[in-house]
């Protein structure tokens, strides 16, 4: 019975709270004050906020949404889709090594040379507290970047005054793919200890597209298990241990020629945290972590091939971070971070010709990258109207590749290839925020950043890109990419309505891309040729996001987001893989513990494509979803049914960033049963 009034209270005043939480979105980055102002360059989403929160229902309307499903709805984020699971996030048109993806500040790097395992696949919304997206150089807290940062925060556990055990059990069924998603969670807490266990299992068969045909190689299976243990050392110090393991099996990639046989990740960290709002050092966090990823890509399930191939890869990362927040005076805060990580990547390829000898190649010779960084960010609240935030990061990186076979391979192209490279990488940003009257807040951000070339861009060897059909070869002498950024943000807010508009402009110099070399012949069967990575001219990205939220005092709430990016290379040609305008609107009607949510997702036509890379245009589409939720309270326990229809009109469509024009799922009926105790 204890929980019942709490839940009711939360439901009753969610109207009030939801806008409040929107304002309290800033943790770090361009704006650091969580109570003083909103953070314009940052969108924070709580995947598991309290029931009835419209934000929750917008980003994670269906409990079985994967991390990438949720990310695809975040303003400024887009998803490159090569499969139904294993999609790559991008911020404002920039992805891969142009952005940071971190888990609780920990660095993780996918092991697949074909980007089949963006690290977001190794976590489940179930074990996350939040995502923080910081755009542009403002993401420098997590590493030098101009693309931005996506930090996934692991679920926090809280101490309780008495010994308590709470849990969650549930399962979802999807008709379009005959898929099952089951989840379970357990919290055991007392005054000094808080333990959390989470388990997730997903099994999806090939799904049916809008024309009722089955999309081959679109199924997958995975499990995820996480455990955390938090111990209260003193009143303001805690020690937390986190462990997470994720295991994917037979993840189909309909847009590629190979599938993932397995993808295993093990992630562990130990965190000491200190908080004291009264002292000079208001917050401190020191973390040591390690993670290992093993990945195997093969084509054993594909037929009609010249020969079969196996492409295993591995990624190991160890690191430590130390964050400090000092309150130097009433108006001046200083955020300081010191971090170090070392990442070892290795990928190889075995080819089995019929009757012939097995062929072997290092697609990425063992490469070890070590990066040490310093981050400083003073936040100055000049007066009640003005706030200035400055951020600077300096990273010193060593990239080593001393594998003899790898060196021999690369010296075919670059006879001077060295086994050791030292690089300085820097990021700077300035954010000025001003309150304009009672309802408007405006801010301007200016940034300049560099980014390290990825080790694939330096040492990759005949890596086939299905999109343009070229084999890519790394360039050890490649320089840092740099970018200058300008963004502006205007936020209007009153009691029921908030509107945020944030246009941006990013100019990238020393733009890294593959350059066709007509003299080279492709390794991959049927490939168009070979491209070598190099710094070319420049590229300009511009666009913006619009977010509208309306929460009536009655039963109705609405949320709508729109995002647009326009990308152009130095010669005026469109950049490839730029998403067209996309908008998602959700209207929710709630009565007591029941709610109905209607959604529409639409995307404009993309005609601005890079024809020289073989990119094709994509048509516009509109799809509709409807969702129903019912909640029953049984004492302190609750039972929830959540069901709906996605893609009601059974639209046959794909998005522009869906490789190979592989159609998205058709009409899907789903139902989730969840039990909380």
């Amino acid at each position, binding site marked *: 019975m204890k929980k019942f009034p709490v839940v009711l209270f939360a439901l009753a005043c969610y109207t009030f709270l939801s806008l409040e939480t929107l304002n309290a979105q800033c943790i770090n980055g361009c704006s650091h004050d969580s109570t003083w102002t909103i953070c314009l360059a940052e969108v924070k989403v709580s995947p598991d906020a309290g029931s009835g929160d419209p934000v929750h229902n917008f980003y994670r309307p269906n409990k079985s949404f994967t991390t990438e499903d949720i990310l695809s709805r975040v303003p400024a984020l887009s998803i490159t889709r090569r499969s139904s699971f294993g999609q790559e996030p991008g911020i404002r048109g920039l992805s891969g090594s142009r952005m940071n993806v971190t888990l609780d500040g920990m660095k993780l790097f996918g092991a697949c040379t074909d980007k089949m395992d963006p690290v977001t696949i190794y976590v489940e919304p179930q074990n996350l507290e939040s995502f923080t997206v910081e755009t542009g150089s403002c993401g420098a807290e997590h590493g030098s970047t101009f693309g931005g940062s996506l930090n996934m925060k692991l679920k926090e556990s809280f101490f309780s005054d008495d010994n308590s055990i709470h849990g969650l059990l549930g399962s979802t069924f999807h008709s379009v793919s005959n898929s099952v998603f089951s989840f379970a969670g357990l919290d055991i807490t007392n005054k000094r200890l808080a333990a959390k266990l989470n388990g997730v299992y997903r099994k999806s068969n090939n799904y049916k597209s809008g024309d009722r045909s089955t999309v081959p190689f679109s199924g997958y299976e995975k499990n995820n298990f996480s455990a955390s243990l938090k111990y209260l050392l003193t009143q303001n110090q805690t020690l937390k241990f986190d462990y997470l393991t994720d295991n994917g099996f037979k993840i189909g990639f309909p847009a590629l020629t190979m599938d993932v046989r397995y993808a295993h990740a093990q992630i562990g960290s130990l965190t000491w945290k200190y908080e004291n709002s009264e002292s000079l050092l208001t917050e401190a966090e020191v973390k040591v972590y390690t993670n290992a990823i093993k990945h195997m890509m093969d084509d054993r399930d594909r037929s009609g091939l010249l020969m079969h191939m196996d492409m295993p890869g591995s990624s190991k990362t160890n690191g430590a971070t130390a964050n400090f927040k000092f309150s130097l005076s009433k108006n001046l805060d200083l955020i300081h971070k010191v971090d170090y990580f070392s990442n070892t990547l290795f990928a190889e390829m075995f080819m089995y010709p019929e009757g012939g000898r097995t*062929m072997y190649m290092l697609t990425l010779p063992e490469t070890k990258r070590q990066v040490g960084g310093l981050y400083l960010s003073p936040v100055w609240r000049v007066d009640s109207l003005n706030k200035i935030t400055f951020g600077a990061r300096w990273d010193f990186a060593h990239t080593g590749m001393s594998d003899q076979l790898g060196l021999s391979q690369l010296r075919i192209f670059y006879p001077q290839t060295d086994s050791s490279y030292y690089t300085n990488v820097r990021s700077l940003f300035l954010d000025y925020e001003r309150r304009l009257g009672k309802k408007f807040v405006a801010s301007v951000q200016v940034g300049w950043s560099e980014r390290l070339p990825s080790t694939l861009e330096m040492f990759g060897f005949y890596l086939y890109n299905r999109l343009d059909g070229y084999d890519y070869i790394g360039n050890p002498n490649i320089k840092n990419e740099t970018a200058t950024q300008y963004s502006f943000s205007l936020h209007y807010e009153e009691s029921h309505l908030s509107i945020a508009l944030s246009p941006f402009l990013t100019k990238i110099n020393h733009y890294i891309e593959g350059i066709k070399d007509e003299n080279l012949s492709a390794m991959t069967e049927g490939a168009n040729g070979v491209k070598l990575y190099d710094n070319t001219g420049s590229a300009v990205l511009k666009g913006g996001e619009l977010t509208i939220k309306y929460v009536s005092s009655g039963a109705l709430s609405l949320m709508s987001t729109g995002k647009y990016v326009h990308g152009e290379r130095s010669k005026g040609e469109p950049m490839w893989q730029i998403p067209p305008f996309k908008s998602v609107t959700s209207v929710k009607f709630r009565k007591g513990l029941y709610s109905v949510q209607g959604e529409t997702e639409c995307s404009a036509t993309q005609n601005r494509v890079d024809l020289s890379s073989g990119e094709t245009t994509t048509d516009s589409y509109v799809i509709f979803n409807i969702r129903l939720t019912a909640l029953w309270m049984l004492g302190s326990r609750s039972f929830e049914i959540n069901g709906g229809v996605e893609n009601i009109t059974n639209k046959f469509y794909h998005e522009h960033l869906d490789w190979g024009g592989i159609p998205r799922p058709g009409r899907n009926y789903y139902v989730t049963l969840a039990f909380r105790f």
Partner: protein
Amino acid sequence: MKNKISQYLILLLSLTLTFTACKKDDDPAPTPIAADPTAGLTLLSEAYALGASTKVEVWAKASYFTGYNKLYLFLKDSVSGAAVKNAAIVLHPMMDMGTMMHSAPFENPVSTMSSDGLYPCAVVFLMSSMAGTWTLDATITNNENSLAGMASIQVSVADLSESRIKSFITSTSNETLFVSLIKPEAPVVGMNDLEVVIHKRMNMGMEFPADSNLTVEISPLMVSMGHGSPNNVNPVHTGMGHYIGSVNYTMSGDWQINFTFKDNGTVANSSTFFETIVP
């Protein structure tokens, strides 16, 4: 406010954290100087040059095979066993097939002086001993004792699984040429030195002069995948019929090197290739 002071210290400390990186020194271990002149070589045959009072030993890296054999003749005084350091050697290989006989291309030692008694030379065995009997005659003029004589060395030649010698008839002048692959001896992934030697068959196979007039072009091919490799260097003539270039292998597996021979710009042959296994 003791606490405050210690916190300022933390602030200072955290701000002054620096990083150091260590660079590893990779000094190669010093290679020991070989005292034994035949180190790394195997004794294949021995014979006496009657009249020259000299024992002739044939040393090589591998046993006799069909193709270009780099041989080292070790001359010793047949009585004292001391190395003979000044001698002229003239080779004369001969194949007896019963119904006919022919010679083979060879390279005599360039110098009559040898600091350790070892005289490098070469013979291109055109076929294995399955076809008949190979004899390698070596006429020795021992300048130390001013005696001369001939050693007749019995040679047993075996075919290799991947042939290192190919022959073709030029479409331009109707001559028979033999191409022998010298390098790479042990191909590796990456860059490899490439060396071939070309000889012309003349006088019913009794003479094989070196050819230096051809233009040679190469293109490696991974047969099972149908792709080549980049940045190869076509072999060019460096002397005595030897052509030197380089060949690149991008991966391990079965490769072949395709050759095109041109005579004054006209293709004389383009169907010759060597198969190599890159481990």
